[in-house]
């Protein structure tokens, strides 16, 4: 079963690298590990017959967004939380929101996993439905995007414009040198 081996390899890689992102003290390594995690997710998308999403994942996420993060990490040049702060603020040693937050996160995973494991019929009913050629073709994707989702598509362009202006205004240096 090469298919399931691939699935477990990709998902294991995605989960391990995501956990390392959160556990890492140096943001530089966090960003690089997150790129690996996104690559593994792209592999999962290929297995789900969504090759275009996989390519967009690599190009947009790993190529654009993560480079932006990397750029900011290098620009700020404040790579480490030092050991003292790390020890003092270690989530398990601290009362209040940090400790309860991680507890809630674990609880969330347990609940979701148990609910999904019990919902066996979810896997059986829908198994194998859908025409692979239609789903994975870029032609169908473009057609649906530019007809059914036209309004959302246009609204997205306004969102990007607002985000661009917002980023420029926020990161601008105040002063007469403009």
């Amino acid at each position: 079963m090469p298919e399931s081996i691939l699935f477990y390899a990709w998902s294991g890689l995605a989960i391990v690298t995501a956990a390392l992102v959160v556990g890492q003290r140096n943001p530089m390594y966090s960003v690089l590990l997150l790129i690996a995690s996104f690559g593994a997710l792209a592999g999962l998308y290929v297995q789900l017959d969504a090759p275009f999403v996989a390519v967009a994942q690599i190009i947009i996420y790993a190529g654009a967004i993560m480079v932006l993060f990397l750029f900011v990490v290098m620009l700020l040049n404040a790579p480490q939380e030092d050991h003292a702060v790390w020890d003092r603020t270690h989530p398990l040693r601290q009362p209040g929101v940090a400790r309860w937050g991680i507890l809630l996160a674990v609880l969330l995973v347990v609940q979701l996993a148990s609910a999904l494991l019990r919902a066996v019929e979810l896997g059986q009913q829908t198994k194998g439905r859908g025409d692979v050629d239609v789903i994975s073709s870029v032609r169908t994707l473009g057609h649906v995007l530019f007809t059914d989702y036209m309004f959302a598509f246009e609204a997205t362009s306004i969102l990007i414009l607002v985000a661009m202006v917002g980023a420029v205004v926020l990161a601008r240096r105040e002063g007469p040198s403009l």
Partner: protein
Amino acid sequence: MIPLNHYLIVSAILFGIGSAGVFMRRNLITILLSVEIMLNAVNLTFVAFGRFIGTVDGQIITFFVMTVAAAEAAVGLAIVISLYRHKESLNPDAFTSLKW
């Protein structure tokens, strides 16, 4: 074929990791990265459901989520840069002057 459950469980674990990161990390950049992990977990759910229902809508919503993630990263990082200029720190505990 891998059943839908497996994809959803992977997505749930990723979402849990992301939310744990938001709660437990004390670094603004890592918190933003954890938000990106959560968005990606949801993307995986969308694509998996779309595949098993047999439509492309899941993939298209994934594109919109990617766009929103890019906008969020741009604005969020701009805020991080301007905060860093004020306090020379990335620790969110340093920015509690707006706290009640």
